[in-house]
């Protein structure tokens, strides 16, 4: 993976309060505060060793973890009108878009690609939370429609990695209209009898959950992901009481019948492959074959000396991001 790109730091860092990828060498577990060497984290598919906290991953990393040998082709998304409302608050929406593009290298919040998963042709889309909170606007909606239609065309299963705060507020009602629009594409997948597997990742809320993300044939969730319609803050303000422990987390949704299965990221690829293959009536894989095509963690394995140095809980503050 390319760590060079992280050397080029956008100037507007101050605004990007939460970045999942560090520019620095050390990452702090948001749950336990434990410090992890970045290459250890990467080798562990961005799951904090020890606490098992699932860090967010960017869209390209997601694809590299999904597809055989990390190889895939992106699918181009038709252009959509930009900034339909000529929206501005403190700053212009177009500026915010430009900034998000520079920061993520993406055109908008959704990346669409196709490739092989254990040899089975798959179309997939990832919502990248780093791009304006993964929010669903016209471009993201168009990307999802394009992806689902590509799956229909290729007669392939469609795997969606959902993550978003909700609608792209700056596109107003046209953002809301992505809910029915994407639902039309889901219906096309359904009519073609192709598997539509949704992987709910942290966080997936708002209009995204209230449309395509809750219409999958199978709902898989990563552990500890926040998944819901209204955000916890809104609910707390409405009912004026504290929310129960674990409310709106993957495990909670599992208990309430809203997701099929909660899967650790290490097992995600095999789970997705298995479900897709069974629904497509593809033959079972010998176990060894599966491992062979999976991305090899060794490739990205850190220099053992560097990795051995930090002790969880030890102060290494001077090496970490100052403000994140």
């Amino acid at each position, binding site marked *: 993976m390319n760590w060079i790109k992280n050397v080029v730091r956008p100037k507007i860092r101050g605004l990007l309060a939460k970045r999942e990828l560090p520019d620095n060498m050390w990452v702090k577990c948001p749950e336990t505060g434990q410090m992890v060497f970045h290459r250890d984290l990467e080798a562990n598919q961005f799951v904090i060793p020890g606490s098992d906290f699932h860090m967010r991953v960017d869209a390209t990393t997601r694809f590299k973890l999904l597809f055989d040998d990390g190889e895939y082709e992106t699918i181009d998304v038709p252009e*959509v*009108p930009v900034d*339909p*409302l*000529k*929206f*501005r*608050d403190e700053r212009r929406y177009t500026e915010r878009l430009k900034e998000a593009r520079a920061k993520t290298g993406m055109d908008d919040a959704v990346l669409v690609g196709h490739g092989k998963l254990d040899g089975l042709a798959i179309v997939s889309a990832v919502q990248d939370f780093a791009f304006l909170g993964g929010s669903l606007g*016209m471009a993201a909606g168009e990307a999802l*429609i394009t992806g689902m239609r590509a799956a229909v065309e290729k007669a392939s299963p469609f795997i969606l990695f959902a993550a978003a*705060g*909700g*609608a792209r*507020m700056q*596109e*107003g*009602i*046209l*953002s*809301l*209209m992505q*809910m*029915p*629009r994407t*639902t*039309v594409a*889901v*219906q096309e997948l359904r009519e073609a009898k192709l598997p539509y597997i949704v992987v709910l990742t942290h966080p997936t809320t*708002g*209009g995204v*959950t*209230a*449309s*395509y*993300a*809750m*219409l999958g044939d199978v709902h898989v969730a990563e552990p500890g992901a926040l998944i*819901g*319609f*209204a955000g916890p803050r*809104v*609910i707390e303000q*409405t*009912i004026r009481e504290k*929310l*129960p422990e674990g*409310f*709106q987390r993957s495990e909670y949704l599992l208990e*309430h*019948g*809203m997701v099929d299965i909660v899967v650790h990221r290490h097992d995600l690829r095999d789970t997705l492959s298995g479900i897709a293959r069974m629904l497509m009536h593809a033959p079972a894989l010998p176990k060894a074959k599966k491992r062979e095509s999976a991305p090899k963690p060794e490739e990205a394995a850190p220099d053992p000396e560097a990795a051995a140095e930090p002790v969880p809980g030890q102060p290494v503050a001077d090496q970490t991001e100052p403000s994140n």
Partner: protein
Amino acid sequence: MRTYLDFEKPVAELEGKIAELRALSDDESSAAISEEVKQLEEKAAKSLQEIYTNLKPWQKTQVARHPERPHFSDYIDGLIAEFTPLAGDRKFAEDHAIIGGLGRFKGGSVMVIGQEKGNDTQSRLRHNFGMARPEGYRKAVRLMELADKFAVPVITIVDTAGAYPGIGAEERGQSEAIARSTDCCLALGVPHVALIIGEGGSGGAVAIATANKVLMLEHSIYTVASPEASASILWRDSTRAEDAATAMKVTAKHLKKLGVIDAIVDEPVGGAHRNPAETVKLAGEAIAREFATMDGLAPDDLRKTRRAKFLDMGRSLPST
């Protein structure tokens, strides 16, 4: 006693004076007084007309939420004969925030579904201020499927700040319920007209408003999130709702221009709350007009045109 909105002050003053003069004229009924009343009335009407033709987005929001504005039940009373409410989602409960049932509209059978906000404290609580829980949307799905099965056209009447954000609602899958309802709208093989009568708030509105034809009353609003919620998301400050309403283009006129709605239903001068009966009548005529355009269309055509309409939405936009 009428509830006046802050920007209606000039009208309130004039109407107050008129009432005073009228009280006087009861005893003496002088020609001078009735002449003055007439002049004041003309002035008030003119002022009202002026105010209402130039309403700003936030003012429209206030009109859309006016407590005396006609609600779901007023449309049922005025337009639907033999209304027979049908309750429950058959899964968990009956949700009074969404009412639905069979009835006759201009003679023909229809399924009518919509949010009811209530008009006094007791009924508002009963209807949860028009904010539905998953059961409401699941009931809507059940009734739409029932309508579909018997080839009964669907009318939805939309008036909600949004779906209810509560623990129970989340527990029982608010988002899934909304998603399935939108899904159901898009699968209907019967004509479906949606009318937004007050607030069309977010996913809670889309869930029943994904129709062949979407109409909006002149002073209603249709939003990605209520102005308060939008302000809270954009600026972490829900008191900036006015700014949000302005920036987010929430009025019928804007939405018509963006191609999100099909037609605007004019309201009587001074808003629907000044003449509910007339408003309901105009809405009925507009709904009938839309149904007429779909006369004789096969179920598949209705589905296809509905889907195509939503897919095309926003792909090309008028330059502003």
